[in-house]
């Protein structure tokens, strides 16, 4: 009775794994680069430099306020139309760049919230012993803020993974897409295929979430606020 199903799963597994691998690679790049972007911009934003703060705010709102699908579309299809040489992205480049910027917008907000959540006395004490603003940031504020951002980063991680499920728009066959392709070959087993896809996502995300929970318990976190 289940013979067919087992055979079906066997035949689609390599494709799903291939999709998972692509999802994994893209999200890891997105997380790493996006986090770096977020650290830098989040820190800059906390300095409250008049023009810059507004500019970074605009960036955050544009990327958090519109669906990832539309952003992807703009980066892959629209920007090349401008004819600028360095804006010609292939699908992988477009996907990665958009994802990094998208991730960055969330991380910026987290870093900024973490810095704001730090008691003001920490920076004041550092300034009072004669540290410059930069030294205070580097030696006192950031080391403490960075510990607070680890737990909420798991939320971002999940948002990022969630958004990669539509990369097929630019022709990338990540995990969800592989599931869809498989469902075209086995239309009768649609549900089972999506259960498999969900299981693979779970295998990927669960350890991350566990780590974040553990980190949150150990060091406490900050929550994302809308400003």
């Amino acid at each position: 009775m289940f013979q067919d199903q087992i055979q079906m799963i066997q035949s689609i597994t390599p494709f799903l794994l291939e999709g998972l691998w692509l999802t994994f690679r893209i999200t890891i790049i997105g997380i790493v680069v996006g986090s770096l972007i977020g650290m830098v911009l989040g820190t800059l934003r906390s300095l409250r430099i008049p023009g810059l703060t507004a500019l970074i705010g605009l960036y955050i709102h544009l990327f958090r306020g519109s669906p990832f699908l539309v952003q992807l579309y703009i980066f892959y299809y629209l920007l090349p139309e401008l004819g600028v040489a360095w804006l010609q992205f292939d699908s992988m480049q477009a996907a990665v760049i958009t994802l990094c910027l998208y991730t960055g917008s969330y991380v910026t907000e987290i870093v900024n919230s973490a810095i704001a959540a730090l008691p003001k006395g920490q920076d004041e004490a550092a300034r009072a012993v004669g540290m410059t603003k930069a030294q205070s940031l580097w030696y006192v504020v950031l080391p403490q803020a960075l510990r607070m951002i680890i737990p909420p980063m798991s939320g971002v991680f999940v948002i990022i993974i969630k958004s990669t499920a539509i990369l097929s728009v630019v022709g990338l066959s990540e995990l969800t897409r592989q599931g869809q392709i498989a469902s075209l070959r086995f239309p009768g087993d649609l549900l089972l295929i999506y259960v498999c896809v969900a299981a693979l996502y779970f295998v990927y995300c669960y350890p991350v979430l566990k780590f974040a929970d553990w980190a949150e318990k150990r060091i406490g976190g900050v929550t994302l606020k809308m400003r």
Partner: protein
Amino acid sequence: MENARSHQSEAIMVSIEAVSRSFKLPRAGKVRALDEVSATVRQGEVVVIIGASGSGKSTLLRTVNALERVDEGRITVNGIEVTNPQSNLNRLRANVGMVFQHFNLFAHKTALENIVLPQTVVLKRSRDEAVSRARELLSRVGIPEKADAPPGDLSGGQQQRVAIARALAMNPKVMLFDEATSALDPETVGGILALMRELADEGMTMMVVTHEMKFAEDVGSRIIFMDQGKIVEEGAPTMFFKAPDNERTKEFLNQIL
């Protein structure tokens, strides 16, 4: 302003000239936290600042090491003009030690590292030198055994001792204390006051905001009473507590004693 304190000299350490500072209130209006305040602190003097909540004591202290900017007026510390944007404030601040009500130890560093960090970063001391100075100061404030404890494991009194040691490590010319004992348990208050008294006896120039009237009376060279951003009375402790001139001062002393 006669005072028997032997260390006191004629050299002016802090000079505050007609300083004003206003804050916008959240909804509307403004509050004038400092209203043309002038004062002088000579080397070796212990100036105690008292006054009701919101009278501007903290703001005054914070303008002295430029944690708060001023709207108008001029402040110099040890000859350097604090209120001049050209001055090297970071250098200046290292000259002025500050102790806060809530200690403000760096939460991610041990007691020892709290004292080492500003030395290596600001004074560019070698790590070895900074560590040995830090250990010396931890002994000085009475908790040599707590060097490796993180702030969270220290009691309030112990944290404040580390904070004082951290400020002393910079070899400050003036020390500012902003309600350094207000957040402490009554039994630990005494220890910190004793430590501050020792510093005063060694000749440290100090500006102290406190509600401890006994300390003010015993240790202060001079008392400044503030009300609504103004200095309304100033004098030697004996005269100040025995025979206050001002109505507000009398009222305040009545309530607090």
